[in-house]
């Protein structure tokens, strides 16, 4: 056990997808690693199959103040405890497309990434081999180049067959949804039984979350994970040129320090900029790594377009994966809806397994019903309900940002304030998707079709990567422009959101960064 005060090679703040992935790679590479997790310990045996119990996996740390017209839904999207938000993620792992990396260059909109799809493709391929992704690359006609999936796709249940009929009638294509879920035994992991409890955490290891995949590797190679350790400050040397470690508060309230050659912030999109801003010194008066003034800026959250239907046929909507069974990316082209004022990409996640209760449950889709009418609806919908969700690109806006509040937490650290209002063109794209989705459900034969309010899926940006240190925080490896041994990991690096779920890209970036760190260790740390 590494003791506070003992110097390690790397301290990683956060045990979610990116932190765990980097910890595993660095530990395998021989580095001495400690991971500090603000939330409690979790193992697979604590993952109870219940939409109510699953709420333990959502953010329960210090409050985050949300403002703006379209709030990011921090508590719902973030995670709490070992494994972070990956413990309740739906394991939908599509790749970003080539054009997502060059939105500014190609369309004079938004921002460019400092790398291209070709730079990331080998790491997508590597990660899908390591973590296991099920899909059908040939059927996924929109998919950018890459190795075929290592597992056969998710099986199709009645709900998927019924909705696919609507897509077909509209002249649209569907393909199996790429899922980081086992359809066959994979690296000793059990096979999914398609019970739809993905977001309650997957205790059988069928879903690729950090507790199943990366953390066991990290621990086997000596990495130490300390839960209930809330990092309160990033430490620098006297000149402010380097970071030297972090200060954290343990469960008893005791403050300690871990000194490290390298600090990786992997504490999710909101807490990373909060920590940078709250760690200001006389050498970094506006916060660490903030010479650009962009720490906190360009927070994005995919607007979710929710389409529901009731069918006379039995949909078996309780079967499958929470993320869905099928994918459609016919509208991924950025200018597909030109003329409507909309810009950007989106995809449909089709035929999601659903439970009766909770925010995404059946009952919530008809929030207008109560009393006996609600009982009647529930009994009908339990057998004839169907749904699909479009993941809408959220164009980056500098004013959508994480800033520090005047309020402080129990450790004296200012709380994060997140302001987010969806870009007008993204909003129009959301509306276009809803119209398309309703037409598809009608074509599929739904006897009733309705939509939900705009949801917020995923949180990205806030510590974006870029080629120019004047208007971005990190380089293409997540290394901050200002401080070479301070890195950011996770979706906070994204300069644009694309129209796909971020987790696969988070892993690909983490794999690329890990390789870079191991090859360039000495130059990074000094």
């Amino acid at each position: 056990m590494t003791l506070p005060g003992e110097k390690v090679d790397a301290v990683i703040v956060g045990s979610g997808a990116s932190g765990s992935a980097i910890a595993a790679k660095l530990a395998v590479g021989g580095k001495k690693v400690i991971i500090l997790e603000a939330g409690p310990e979790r193992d697979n045996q604590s993952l109870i199959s219940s939409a109510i119990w699953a709420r333990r996996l959502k953010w329960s740390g210090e409050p985050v103040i949300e403002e703006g017209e379209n709030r990011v839904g921090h508590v719902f999207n973030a995670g709490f405890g070992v494994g972070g938000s990956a413990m309740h993620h739906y394991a939908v792992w599509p790749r970003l497309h080539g054009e997502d990396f060059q939105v500014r260059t190609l369309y004079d909109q938004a921002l460019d990434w400092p790398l291209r799809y070709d730079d990331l493709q080998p790491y997508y391929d590597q990660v899908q081999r390591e973590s296991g992704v099920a899909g059908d690359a040939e059927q996924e006609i929109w998919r950018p180049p890459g190795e075929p999936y290592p597992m056969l796709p998710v099986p199709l249940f009645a709900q998927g067959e019924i909705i696919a009929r609507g897509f077909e009638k509209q002249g649209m294509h569907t393909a199996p949804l790429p899922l980081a879920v086992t359809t066959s035994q994979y690296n000793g992991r059990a096979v999914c039984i398609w019970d739809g409890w993905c977001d309650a955490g997957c205790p059988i290891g069928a879903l690729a979350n950090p507790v199943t995949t990366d953390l066991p590797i990290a621990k086997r190679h000596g990495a130490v994970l300390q839960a209930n350790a809330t990092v309160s400050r990033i430490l620098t040397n006297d000149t402010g040129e380097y970071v030297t470690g972090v200060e954290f508060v343990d469960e008893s309230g005791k403050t300690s320090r871990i000194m490290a050659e390298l600090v990786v912030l992997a504490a999710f999109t909101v807490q990373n900029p909060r920590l940078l801003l709250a760690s200001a010194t006389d050498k970094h008066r506006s916060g660490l790594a903030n010479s650009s003034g962009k720490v906190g800026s360009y927070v994005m959250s995919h607007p979710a377009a929710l389409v529901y239907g009731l069918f006379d046929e039995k949909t078996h909507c309780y079967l499958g994966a929470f993320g869905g069974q099928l994918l459609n990316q016919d509208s991924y082209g950025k200018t597909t809806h030109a003329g409507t004022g909309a810009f950007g990409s989106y995809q449909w996640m089709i035929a999601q397994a659903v439970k009766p209760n909770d925010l995404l449950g059946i009952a919530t889709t008809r929030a207008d019903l109560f009393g006996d009418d609600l009982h009647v609806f529930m009994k009908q919908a339990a057998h004839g309900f169907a749904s699909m969700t479009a993941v809408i690109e959220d164009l980056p806006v500098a004013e959508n940002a994480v800033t520090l509040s005047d309020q402080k937490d129990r450790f004296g650290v200012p709380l994060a304030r997140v302001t987010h209002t969806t870009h007008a063109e993204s909003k129009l794209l959301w509306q276009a998707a809803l119209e398309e989705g309703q037409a598809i459900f009608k074509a599929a034969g739904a006897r009733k079709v309705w939509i939900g309010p705009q949801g917020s899926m995923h949180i990205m940006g806030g510590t974006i990567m870029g080629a120019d240190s004047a208007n971005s925080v990190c380089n293409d490896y997540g290394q901050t422009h200002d401080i070479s041994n301070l890195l950011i990991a996770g979706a906070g690096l994204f300069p644009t959101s694309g129209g796909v779920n971020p987790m696969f890209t988070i892993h690909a970036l983490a794999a690329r960064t890990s390789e870079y760190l191991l090859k360039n260790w000495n130059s990074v740390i000094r």
Partner: protein
Amino acid sequence: MQQSRRTFIRNSGIGLLGFTVGGCEVKLTPEDARQQKIPFQVLSPDEVRTLEALGESLLPGSAAAGLAHFIDHQLAASPRDQLLMIKYLGVSPPFSPFYSTGLAALNNSANDQHGADYADLTREQSAALVGQMAQANPQGWSGPAAPFFYFVLRNDAVDVVYGTKEGFERLDIPYMAHIEPPGRWGE
């Protein structure tokens, strides 16, 4: 049966609701707790009465399913352990003021419109008032936004009625648990 105190116990890292009944610590579902008239920790008797009446309007059967004990138990827990859906609806803990001011507002509106507390309204009167809540603040309302209060309480009622194995059975759909909940909803 004598009830003396109520406490949280921990079992395998899972927060279980324990009651000391007749000197012995037992685990009870909120439904059982209601039947055994286990004392409330946070909610007042008047709040319980209003809450159960509202629950019956929102989803009949929710009072008997232990809606009030469920909410009371969760409000008594530390913010980290609370399992109410309100935790991810943009309200910072503690959540007790949200519930108490909302229930008070409901009674104020009921008195303003009908000269009686909500629990004393007729079925038609209470349904009409809930219908108003779903749309906007009813006349006489002063508290959290009524449509939001409606949304939150309605979801609490759905949790206790349909978010359990028994609820799935009522809908004739399989529960298919990997790991069974230790109680029906976090007790």
